[in-house]
């Protein structure tokens, strides 16, 4: 095996095809897209060089600013919610439910396998006000409160989006973090207990530091996924009311494919790539600290 991997030509033969396919499918379109961001036009009219006009428009476009702000707000809220709820569920599985957790894990994971469109329709129906009250509004009316038109205001629509996406994916993060928690050696936990650590102190000083790598992976996984959110927003609000819940991805999609402005759409895609890169770097930087040292 060592001889094979020590041979440069063997490496080229083994990796070459995969690298070629990856380059052509992933890297070439990425660079192509960056190239488009310096042009104006579309597939009907053709493309002409436009210099940095798309980036200067991006700098001054209030719609792009709003979409960027919404994207960041959404990513932070959903990431915190997903990972926090996932971690709490994982703790519940490991320390309370233990071997009986399989059924609960399956049930909580279940929304993850549902099609996003179905989940979007489900939440639309749950929170609807017309033509009939959905269960949430019916409950509000039953307890003597006024029904709420959840999808007519940006704030309320945002709340429904957050609830939906946390509900949908917390089971997935719970399983991911559960895998990290079960790897913590029992004798280590036992000795910590013998030393008097229990409850929150055990979690804070033993469980959290030992599960930190998987927690970080979840965080990076989640923030990158939520920064690129598209399907759940299209299914639930389609970016509305107005453009109140439009993230960068949806703005990019509409700009390029609906408005036929591929150059500006590519510039928005470039901005999103930079944001994802920066956020990931910031997370890596912030999390270098060793938690076991207090």
């Amino acid at each position, binding site marked *: 095996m060592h001889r094979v991997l020590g041979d440069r030509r063997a490496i080229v033969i083994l990796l070459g095809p995969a690298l070629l396919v990856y380059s052509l499918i992933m890297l070439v379109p990425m660079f192509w897209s960056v190239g488009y961001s310096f042009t104006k036009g579309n597939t009907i009219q053709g493309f002409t060089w436009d210099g940095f006009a798309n980036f200067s428009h991006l700098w001054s476009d209030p719609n792009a600013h709003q979409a960027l702000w919404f994207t960041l707000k959404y990513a932070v809220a959903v990431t915190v919610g997903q990972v926090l709820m996932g971690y709490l569920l994982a703790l519940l599985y490991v320390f309370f439910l233990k071997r009986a957790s399989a059924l609960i894990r399956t049930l909580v994971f279940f929304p993850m396998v549902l099609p996003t469109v179905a989940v979007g329709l489900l939440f639309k129906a749950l929170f609807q006000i017309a033509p009939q009250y959905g269960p949430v509004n019916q409950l509000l009316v039953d307890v003597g409160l006024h029904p709420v038109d959840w999808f007519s205001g940006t704030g309320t629509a945002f709340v429904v989006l957050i609830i939906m996406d946390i509900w949908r994916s917390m089971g997935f993060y719970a399983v991911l973090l559960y895998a990290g928690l079960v790897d913590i050696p029992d004798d280590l936990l036992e000795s910590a207990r013998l030393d008097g650590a229990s409850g929150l102190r055990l979690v804070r000083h033993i469980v959290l530091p030992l599960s930190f790598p998987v927690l970080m992976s979840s965080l990076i996984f989640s923030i990158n996924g939520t920064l690129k959110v598209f399907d759940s927003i299209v299914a639930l609000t389609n970016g509305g009311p107005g453009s109140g819940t439009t993230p960068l991805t949806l703005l990019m999609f*509409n700009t390029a494919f609906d408005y036929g402005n591929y150059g500006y759409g590519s510039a928005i895609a470039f901005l999103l790539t930079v944001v994802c890169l920066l956020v990931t770097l910031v997370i890596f930087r912030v999390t270098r600290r060793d938690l076991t040292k207090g």
Partner: protein
Amino acid sequence: MIATSTRSKRRLLGVSACAAALTLLTAACGGTGGGSGSGSAAPSSFSFMSATENTVDRAVLTSMSKNECAAENKALPLSVQTQPQSNLNEKVQLLAGQGALPTMFHEDTPTTVVQLAKSGKVANLEPLLQKLGVEDQLLPSAASTVKLLYNGQLDALPAEYNIEGIFYNKQIFAAHGLTVPTTWDQLVTDAGKLQAAGVQPFSASGQQGWPITRLIGDYIFRDLGPDAMQDVADGKAKLTDPAYVAAAQQVADLGAKGYFGKGVGSIDYNTALNTFLTGKAAMLYMGSWALSNIGDPKQDTVGAGNIGFMPFPAVTGGKGSTDQYPSNIGLGIVVSAQNAANGEVDDWLSCIAKNYGTDSLKQQNTISGFKVNGSVPASNAVTSQVQTTMNTATSSVLWFEALFSAQATTISQQDAAPLVSGSMSAQQFMSAVQNANSGS
């Protein structure tokens, strides 16, 4: 010798692996075929890409392929594919870029059709229909609407020809002592009386947006005259001018008073239609295409006999008049230029021109922009009323977004619900649409 052989084997393996990867990529990136394909090769079928939501046009064409156009269908079989309307514009742009447009297709964004026409990808149908000797089969008013829409050129077949106005529930009007309002002020007063009596005055889909923005456009036409939106397109006026903002304010006021009912932003097209057809709302702004729903007793529990049609009322002191009906051709059917010169395609187009009007009215109760050859009795009084109105209308106007860019159209329709729910002011609404339309 052995070393050389091993080296050449490795090289061969590497080359084979690269070739396999390239083959896979080529297969993945290649088109799926079908339709007319690219280039000038003769089409293998008379392909029609229909908006999924529009069931009428493909039903009429399918019926024609089995009856009047059976010979044409034998020579070049009709093949129908559907595409949800929300992605129709994207799909058309994509296919145009690949040179793979179907022979005929629906397109809902006039600016895209104009771009396609400028780049020679869609046929100018006027000379083509003249060559085929069937140009007289188009209703002059429908042809004029198409030209208004597409920069003076006949770039689409008017498979539908609609006028728009307000359908109203005669029983509700009678029960509350209301007569058909002739001015906007009377309409608003009547709506107030209905609301006070616990009847929802208007049913509208805020999710679609256009049933609300149509009201803004019509108010502008009645107030500022039939050229008001052309002036915006020509840069002579802006949507942020006070008179235009006033129109948006009038419609926003209807929403503020609750005249569209609860949660208008969540109401989809079918729910809005159903609310009116089941007697839960007194009025519905809609086009004549709704006659097929009104004529269907399963959907219309109010009964076609109890539904009337009125023009959008006049604005007191305005330059427009109520006989200028907002008209449209629904989803225009555009013909791909690369196939328009084909003899078999031309035979199909000729057959469509001669028979579409009659088939559409007879089978789908839908009025098209083609002449009705032979007599087809109207199925109910309101259909007859609308037909008479269409035949006697002297002039027409377009609709609010007709001359807007795709971006301004989307912004206008998605901001309609925030406008009537009060989360966006009339000034903000018009500014957003104006900015999108001027590309800033």
